[in-house]
């Protein structure tokens, strides 16, 4: 190629001039852009740059403890550590280093990487927590590798500790890492990684127990050195929550129920205080405090005994004969019968063309002629079938609903079930069929569609024994109720007065159940004024029950006992699922009542207690002639 110079070999001058204008115009546009940002919007950007200089370290609020009524610690905290990653020098986080960290801390490398890249969008002075509630070996790894990994630091946190392990687990509940669902809920105060109450008291009173985390904030200069502190967010420790639960009584109830499937609830019917609440089988909530492993979780959720369920408030079952107290109340209060109304029980009765058996039918004899007292004492089914026919479903349902069944009691626990009191309307709505009057006959003895929870039975019978004052059951001490913003207030009660005559008749009947060789004779204790009612509720029809040997089809055993028989101080409901016969449930309640009684005796008697003792000694109840045990 030959390049020679030609004198007249030039481009037209305007072409270069065009380039000159192009440069001028583009530069002018760029300068306008810079002017807008650097002068026009300077304030906004200066503020954002300031925010980038804030280094904030979280201070985790210690969670409040849970105490029993005497102040004994049921749920506590233990100091622990989370591992934090400081990202101030992002360049130092080479892939090799991140890999070594993941290995050292037993973390999934992919997860760690994505956590780091997710966080890279934000303020680099904000550390991220890469291993919450770390093991001791992780803490020592961080401390022994400080020169190698200066980016790792430990954050003091609190691990939840349940010192009595599975003790009252269903009632106290457990904590766990907040779920995505909980974080995403509109207005949710939670951030990912927060530890919150997931069930029981821990969940109900989470906002009280959790307090609020603090933040220590400092400003760094252009070299990353602290140059001043900003107003830090003070840590507000969680409040202790004092329960009405009594550790000693709870212990007796736990032991009494043992490895049986069921629940025990003990209430003070005068106040609604829950003295004990047990649901078995149970689980160890300590397993949830850290990350629960998949296997344990699968095991707990697959267990047919449903250990994560609080059966005291969530098991909805037929109450069996205990419902007879409701039927009897309805019959007396409506004036349908008087207490001397008698029925002859031959072991079966035919009503509406259907033959209903008494529970004694299999033994080949009935109860003979019985009055109301003996019908309660010996749990005569035929007597109450007759009352069921006389009353009809509407009256029974009216009384059942007003005495605490078919609706949540309003206890301060999450996920309480409401049970069910059937009515013709309900049958039509759910089953799209007409109510059959014969169904009322089954309901009268607590079978058929009627369903209750153990708590409801304790609540209902306790309220009846108190003359129709139904105190809302609660776990938190009423003295704390106002401060804790609970859903109940001290003294909350539904009133449904029961006539004095009715009350005396019922009370004497239930005293007889225990003390006159009735179905609850197993609860009889010398010197202790216990009354109660048994229930043996069919789970399935008798035919199916016989064809299956599995205990899942065994009858559920119920007993509700209270003490003293008038103006009771404690009412205990016991459910043993598949227990077969109510006699299984009776001694459990007896032991709980005895524990309460013994504890009361060992204390200096108060005026009220002294009065009770005087009354006991003077023998308030005439003991009618007993009949043979069944």
């Amino acid at each position, binding site marked *: 190629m030959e390049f020679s110079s030609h004198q007249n070999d030039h481009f037209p001058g305007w072409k270069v001039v065009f380039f000159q204008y192009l440069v001028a115009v583009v530069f002018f546009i*760029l300068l306008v852009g810079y*002017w807008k940002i*650097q002068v026009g919007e300077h304030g906004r950007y200066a503020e*954002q*740059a300031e925010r980038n200089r804030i280094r904030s370290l979280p201070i985790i609020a210690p969670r409040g403890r849970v105490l029993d009524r005497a102040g004994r610690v049921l749920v506590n905290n233990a100091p622990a550590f989370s591992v934090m990653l400081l990202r101030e020098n992002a360049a130092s986080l080479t892939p090799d280093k991140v890999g070594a960290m993941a290995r050292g801390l037993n973390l999934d490398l992919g997860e760690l990487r994505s956590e780091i*890249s997710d966080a890279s969008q934000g303020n680099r002075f904000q550390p991220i927590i890469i291993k919450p509630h770390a093991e001791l070996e992780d803490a020592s790894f961080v401390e022994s590798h400080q020169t190698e990994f200066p980016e790792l630091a430990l954050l003091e946190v609190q691990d939840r500790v349940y010192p009595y392990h599975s003790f009252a687990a269903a009632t106290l509940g457990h904590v766990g890492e907040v779920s995505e669902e909980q974080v995403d809920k509109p207005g949710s105060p939670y951030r990912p990684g927060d530890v919150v109450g997931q069930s029981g008291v821990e969940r109900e009173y989470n906002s009280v127990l959790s307090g609020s985390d603090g933040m220590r904030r400092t400003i760094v200069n252009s*070299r990353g050195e602290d140059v001043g502190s900003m107003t830090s967010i003070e840590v507000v420790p969680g409040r202790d929550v004092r329960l009405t639960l009594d550790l000693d009584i709870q212990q007796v109830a736990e032991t009494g129920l043992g490895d049986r499937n069921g629940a025990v609830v003990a209430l003070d019917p005068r106040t609604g205080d829950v003295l004990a609440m047990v649901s078995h089988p149970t689980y160890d909530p300590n397993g949830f405090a850290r990350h629960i492993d998949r296997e344990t979780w699968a095991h707990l959720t697959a267990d047919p005994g449903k250990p994560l369920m609080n059966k005291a408030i969530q098991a909805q079952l037929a109450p069996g004969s205990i419902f007879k107290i409701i039927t009897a109340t309805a019959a007396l209060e409506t004036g349908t019968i008087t207490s001397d109304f008698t029925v002859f029980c031959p072991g079966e009765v035919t009503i509406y063309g259907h033959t209903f058996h008494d529970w004694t039918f299999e033994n080949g004899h009935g109860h003979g002629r019985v009055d109301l007292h003996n019908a309660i004492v010996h749990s005569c089914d035929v007597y109450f079938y007759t009352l069921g026919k006389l009353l009809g479903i509407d009256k029974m349902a009216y009384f059942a609903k007003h005495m605490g069944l078919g609706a949540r009691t309003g206890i301060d626990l999450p996920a309480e079930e409401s049970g069910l009191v059937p009515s013709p309307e309900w049958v039509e709505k759910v089953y799209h069929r007409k109510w059959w009057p014969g169904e009322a006959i089954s309901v009268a003895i607590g079978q058929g569609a009627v369903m209750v929870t153990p708590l409801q039975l304790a609540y209902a019978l306790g309220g009846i024994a108190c003359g129709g004052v139904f105190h809302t059951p609660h776990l938190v001490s009423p003295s704390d109720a106002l401060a804790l913003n609970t859903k109940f207030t001290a003294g909350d009660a539904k009133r449904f007065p029961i006539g004095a005559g009715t009350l005396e008749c019922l009370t004497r009947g239930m005293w007889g159940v225990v003390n006159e060789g009735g179905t609850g004779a197993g609860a009889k204790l010398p010197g202790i004024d216990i009354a109660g009612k048994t229930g043996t509720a069919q789970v399935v029809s008798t035919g199916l029950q016989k064809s299956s040997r599995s205990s899942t089809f065994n009858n559920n055993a119920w007993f509700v006992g209270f003490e003293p028989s008038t103006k009771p101080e404690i009412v205990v409901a016991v459910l043993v699922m598949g227990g077969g016969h109510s006699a299984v449930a009776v001694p459990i309640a007896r032991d709980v009542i005895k524990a309460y009684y013994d504890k009361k005796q060992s204390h200096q008697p108060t005026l009220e207690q002294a009065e009770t003792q005087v009354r006991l000694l003077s023998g308030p109840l005439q003991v009618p002639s007993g009949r043979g045990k069944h």
Partner: protein
Amino acid sequence: MLRPGKLKDFDWFLLGVAVVIAVIGAIEIYSTTLGTPLVGQYRKQILFTFIGCLGAFVVSRIDYHAILERAPWLFGLGVLGLVVLLFTKPVAGARRWFPLGFATLQVSELVKLVIIVSVAAILADRRDEAATWKDLLKLGIVVGLPAALVALEPDLGTALTFVPIAAAGVLMVGIRFRHVAVLALFGALMLPVGWHFLRPYQRERVVSFIHPAQDTRGSHYQATQSKIAIGSGGFLGKGFGSGTQSRLGFIPVSRADFMFATYSEEQGFVGTLFVMLLYFVLLLRLLDVAQTAGDRAGSLVVVGLAALLFFQVSVNVGMMIGFLPITGIPLPLMSQGGSSVLSTFLGLGMAISVRMRRLVN
């Protein structure tokens, strides 16, 4: 009569403006690394500025016609260099740097000069009113082949800078409307194909520029933080060594591609205006050299260089404030990088060579 290229005709003004910009860059590198282990980096920049000045002297002594005559050789050498580069060990995920023992050479920076020379060589003898298809095809190869090789490194930003060199050359010799229309159509058809060849992170940059809310990996983050740096600098700037955004690491590689954000944060709008004026003066001086060049070949060399510098300055300064998507295009003379500084000074050396041999009446 063309001047003989005497030393007394050397363009001290052009070189002086370039040196001032380079020194401002070196000072800013010092400022942003103050108190860090990288504080010595500015010395390297000064050293390359010095070497660049010497190089500019040497190149200015050579008659640019002699360089243009060897354009095919230089082109062959440049392509060979880029091919060899693809077989080296990647550094930080890319094959851009050729190890020389004492330093590394970014081959694509020198290839920019090769393309300027090649484009000028192709178009210098065009006596027609406009570029022919043959010219356009030649230009396509001269720009396309190295651009493809550089894009493979991968370094799409640098590959893009080759395009304005050819475009400016074509505009100088003129082009028929028909050709423009066909080229535009071809370009439009190639867009989806080109998109197909983009790497995921490159696609994200484009997407995050068009839809900032869809950004997932952080190219929008870089643009945002760069804007925060510049905006927080205000009218007078935060002062020497006090740019928190750049020094606290919110601006990635604050000494290289994002140098101007670093500078703007510390020196404010006043500093921005000053440096932009310097670039403006530099470019106008180059265009003046192009206007007064002895022949078309000289004009084309200088216009090519001016187009390259103008493109790089506009894109780099524009992307700092979100006018353009983030691409790896350094700010000539200011961004840290020996190869870039050296190549710019050598280019200026060619321009001075053209000026020293300008037409005298």
